[in-house]
């Protein structure tokens, strides 16, 4: 069995030097991504996010304020005929509004992801749900991506097992691209064992290059986008 030191020493030997105890990383004065999505107003970033996600068949429901979220979400759920929902309990204001909204819906069964509920029951609920509702930390304008931090009441499977993934996102939280979110990760990932960047529905082109949607994950993604950046 190779032990760690022997494994690393072999590499050092092949590279013709001892294993370094310190490394000077190259410092860059500029980056190849500097020009991407720069100089756009927040409104332009939000519009680009919408365009990019729509191009991938993602749906965007624009909502003017947080106060209008309950009505918009309820209407969407009724119109689409969702019966079983699984949802995050997110500590943000939007998360609380979402919980209150779902609690008031009649004839609809909602399971909240919870660190105190049984794992098997939660998985079964997510597996049978028509809609999984989550709250995004960020949106990325360049790609139409939503960024989800998973832990505790914010289960990973809520955005994965139901047939549709629903995401609450504030316009003010849309940032230009991957760069701005990755720059925060060093401090954030130790607190979250899983972070997901989701861009459009689950897709595959493995059968004769023919695009197929909903292979393993949701076949639909809908983003309830609160235009708080305009206020």
């Amino acid at each position: 069995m190779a032990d760690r030191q022997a494994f690393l020493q072999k590499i050092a030997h092949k590279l013709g030097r001892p294993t370094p105890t310190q490394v000077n990383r190259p410092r860059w004065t500029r980056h190849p991504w500097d020009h991407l999505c720069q100089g756009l107003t927040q409104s332009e970033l939000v519009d680009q996010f919408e365009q990019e996600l729509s191009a991938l068949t993602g749906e965007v429901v624009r909502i003017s304020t947080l106060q209008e979220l309950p009505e918009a979400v309820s209407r969407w759920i009724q119109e689409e005929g969702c019966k079983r929902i699984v949802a995050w309990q997110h500590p943000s204001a939007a998360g609380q509004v979402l919980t209150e909204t779902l609690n008031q819906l009649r004839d609809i069964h909602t399971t909240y992801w919870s660190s105190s509920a049984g794992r098997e029951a939660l998985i079964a609920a997510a597996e049978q749900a028509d809609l999984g509702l989550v709250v995004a930390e960020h949106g990325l304008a360049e790609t139409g991506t939503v960024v989800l931090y998973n832990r505790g009441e914010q289960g990973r499977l809520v955005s994965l097992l139901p047939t549709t993934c629903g995401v609450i996102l504030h316009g003010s939280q849309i940032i230009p691209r991957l760069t701005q979110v990755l720059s925060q990760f060093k401090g954030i990932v130790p607190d979250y064992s899983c972070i997901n960047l989701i861009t459009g529905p689950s897709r595959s082109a493995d059968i004769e290059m023919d695009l197929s949607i909903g292979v393993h994950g949701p076949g639909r993604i809908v983003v309830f986008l609160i235009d708080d950046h305009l206020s």
Partner: protein
Amino acid sequence: MSLSNPLPFKQRVEQGLNDPFLRQSLKNAQARFREGKQRAAQILGNLEEWRTRAEAIRHHTIEHLDYYLDQFATNVENNGGTVFFAETEQEAVDYLIRLAKAKQAKTVIKSKSMVSEETHVNKRLEEIGVEAIESDLGEYIIQLAKEMPSHIIAPAIHKNRRQIAQLFAEVAGKELPEDTSALTRFARHQLRDKFLNADIGISGCNFAVAETGSIVLVSNEGNARLTTTLPKTHVVMMGMERIVPTWEDLDAVLSLLPRSATGQKITSYVTALTGPRRENDQDGPEEMHVIIVDNGRSNALGTEYQSILHCIRCGACLNVCPVYRHIGGHAYGGVYTGPVGAVLTPILEGFDEWEELPYASSLCGACTETCPVKIPLHDMLIDLRRDEVDEKRSPGVERFIFRLFGTAMNNPALYRLGLKMAKHLLKPFADDEGFLNKGPGPLKAWTEERDFPAPAKESFREWWQRAGRYGGDPDGR
């Protein structure tokens, strides 16, 4: 490595050349991927700057690989994960087998992992009675067909819809329509159950981030997410070179990977995993094991082939290669196909089974030109050929002829004599247009594939002596 296709190289090539569906689908796929990549490059506007940065990051990382692996492993352990360093295929699989036995595993679900292909994990698990199921749709198809991937990002590109429907029908025990959405629905339904009941999930690792000990996985289907969320034990199989120092460095390679592969700006899912589930988490694995695999990769370190370890497995070189287009992935025989396979496989495993691979190239340089991390693939193919000659692996007749040629080139009188003789000796074999299409002796192998120009009636040297510097034109002074 045992070949899934045990035929010799030339017969594997023949098989590829005689499969019209394969050739057409490769042509279509290459065109689509290539156009996608070009569009993505246009949108970026400064692709060369990206390539230069990505190359610099990969170069720095591999030059300090031991340092970053140590940092990564320490951070994985601090996050509650377990790290195992496997120098060989045997060590990697033995660790996995021990783990499977300890967990009393009955089924293992896998998301795409080239390292697990390389180490024949499925076969070894089957030997101890553990069912291993591929969850990537393309990988699932080729698993049912008992084949290897023929493309890094489109493993089942060689299969047509009818063949896929037949493979699925065997599982279903009934006929299935030859329709993409019906077939996909069947696979989804079939695999959901497997996910929910699997004891262990095995994933690959697109990138490992040293500064936090995180694993980054990209997928379009979401199967990597299911694999790493549902089973109670998650095993990551990563090639030791799959590392980046920081999240900032990840930006460059993660942005280039999908753009170079399919032209997508980003894949549907990018997942960052840092250790197993935490105290209050209900989903995610209870244990995370990371197996860091050498398996021949260190053969490249400190040599002129070191930069092959820069590869980010985007498959862009496959998508531009004229040889790959004609012969398909299986002709390469190994897990890694196309130009990168022709370079990497002999480095990982030596020339013994793979001495033809460096010759499976037209040396047009398209692979080098397209590589997002600037690996000089076609130069390496020439260097590998040189190494084979140095090891006296080229045919004896060829070596004799080149020795003869070398002697003649060093001796003007011999050279002149040789030219004269060649002219007369080859004359009977030339056609009306002055080409040999059925050459004698050592020229036979060449003229089997292409024509060879017969020596001119008057050699350049003879012409020069006759006409001199005035170019043979009496009025041209």
